[in-house]
């Protein structure tokens, strides 16, 4: 073994170890860089990130309207049966009998947050909510109806012929 290579290795090792120790040493003398938060104290100001998967919700606009057509694709795609779709039939203005959503039932207790329902929804009716405090004393409270009472299907904007 070359003696210069041997000492070169030792100095290289010291240099690289010192590079790591400088980073941790910097954090040690700068306690202001702490990124964790004290949770129950900061409940008022705590804002979850956009990508946080809290629970599945159905988006409603200000007229209490949603985009869910009751097609049942989310129910089919759910790997563990967390979603049940109960549909209803009504007659529309044209006198045709159509299928609408009656209850979009979501079992939070069974959900694994895999996002398959949200990815496959053809009308982007469901998405992630930011709620994270899900602890309850009765597990039946974890079964939720996602469409709000009295809500209705949003009318699709009629295709304008001059759009394209």
């Amino acid at each position: 073994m070359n003696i210069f290579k041997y000492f070169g290795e030792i100095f290289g090792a010291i240099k690289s170890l010192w590079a790591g120790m400088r980073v941790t040493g910097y954090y040690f003398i700068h306690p202001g860089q702490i990124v964790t938060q004290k949770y129950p104290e900061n409940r008022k100001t705590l804002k979850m990130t956009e990508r946080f998967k809290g629970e599945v919700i159905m988006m409603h606009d200000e007229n209490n309207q949603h985009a869910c057509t009751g097609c049942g694709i989310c129910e089919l795609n759910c790997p563990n049966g967390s979603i049940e779709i109960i549909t209803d039939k009504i007659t529309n203005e044209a006198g045709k009998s159509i299928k609408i959503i009656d209850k979009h039932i979501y079992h939070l207790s069974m959900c694994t947050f895999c996002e398959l329902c949200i990815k496959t929804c053809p009308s982007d009716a469901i998405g992630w909510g930011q709620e994270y405090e899900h602890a309850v004393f009765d597990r039946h409270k974890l079964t939720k109806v996602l469409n709000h009472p009295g809500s209705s299907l949003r009318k699709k904007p009629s295709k304008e012929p001059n759009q394209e």
Partner: protein
Amino acid sequence: MDFNIYDFTSFTKWVDNALNSSMSPLLAIIIELIIIGLVFLLFYAIVGLLLVYAERKVCAVIQNRYGPNRVGPFGIFQTIADLIKLLMKELINIKHADNFLFNLAPFIVIIASFMAIAALPFAKGLQAIDFNIGIFYLFAVSSLGVIGILLAGWSSNSKYSLIGAIRSGAQVISYELSVGLSLLAIVVFAGTMQLSGIIESQADGWWIIKGHFPALVAFVIFLIASTAETNRGPFDLAEAESELTAGFHTEYSGIKFAFFFLAEYMNMFIVASIAATMFLGGWMPFHIAGWDGMNAIMDYVPPIVWFFGKTIFVILMMMWFKWTFPRLRIDQLLNLEWKYLLPLNLMNIVLVAFIVLMGWYIK
């Protein structure tokens, strides 16, 4: 009673005389031993608790976390709560374990560290026993703890424990060499193995300054090797959580586990105080030969503060290593010792002997 924070010799003499004048010498010796034992027991518990808290706080800040912050202000009572929890836990009896050795192992580990404290000089005159081969005694008893670790691994009838213990054995046998040789550099400088003599020799400057380059090399090697000897990260192969669940103390619970835990932190304190005593002057204040004004100012700080300040400094260094570097593999560990630390150490010893012979160190 003449209590002097700068020199405990008169205080200990006064206690000795008071005891001897009121009872027979044998009884006086026994009572003195009991007092010293109780003081060390209390010291052991307090240092253990403080070090566990300090380690958790230091590691948290290094990792940009808060660390314990719920029990008491800044979580200072966290370790006491942990201790109460450990005391109330069930002691589980392992089937097909060698019960006698299983119960003996934690005591061997803890007794080894107790024996080491006895020779530590905390301040002038505050040393339980001042051997003329003090430093030799220190690294002899501080490596006894591995017997307890080997026994724990062997007797608990678990493959994780056994692998952890065998690793620990290989590690301590290898790194003991480096610890001994790096301390030998200072013994050559000081010309004595007596701890009080080594400290007296640093009255005009600590060996890490007086011994310049070789002393610095010896100090770095001692830090690495002693971290390995106390089974701390990045050399904590003996417990390697990710591979061996908890290594040699996998099967221990409750207070027996607490003994291992406490002994680990106490060993860290002991090696840190050895490093402080040998390289950084122990309780000796910071002196530079000739600068009498500054030396006089430094003398105002009590020796016990100097000792604990230096020890805490070394402990912080060891924590800094632990929370920076990832754990070594067993082959890397042995490579580091036998291929790098040991040859460097031997070269360093030759260099130190040459320097002392020529008188090239700062006098």
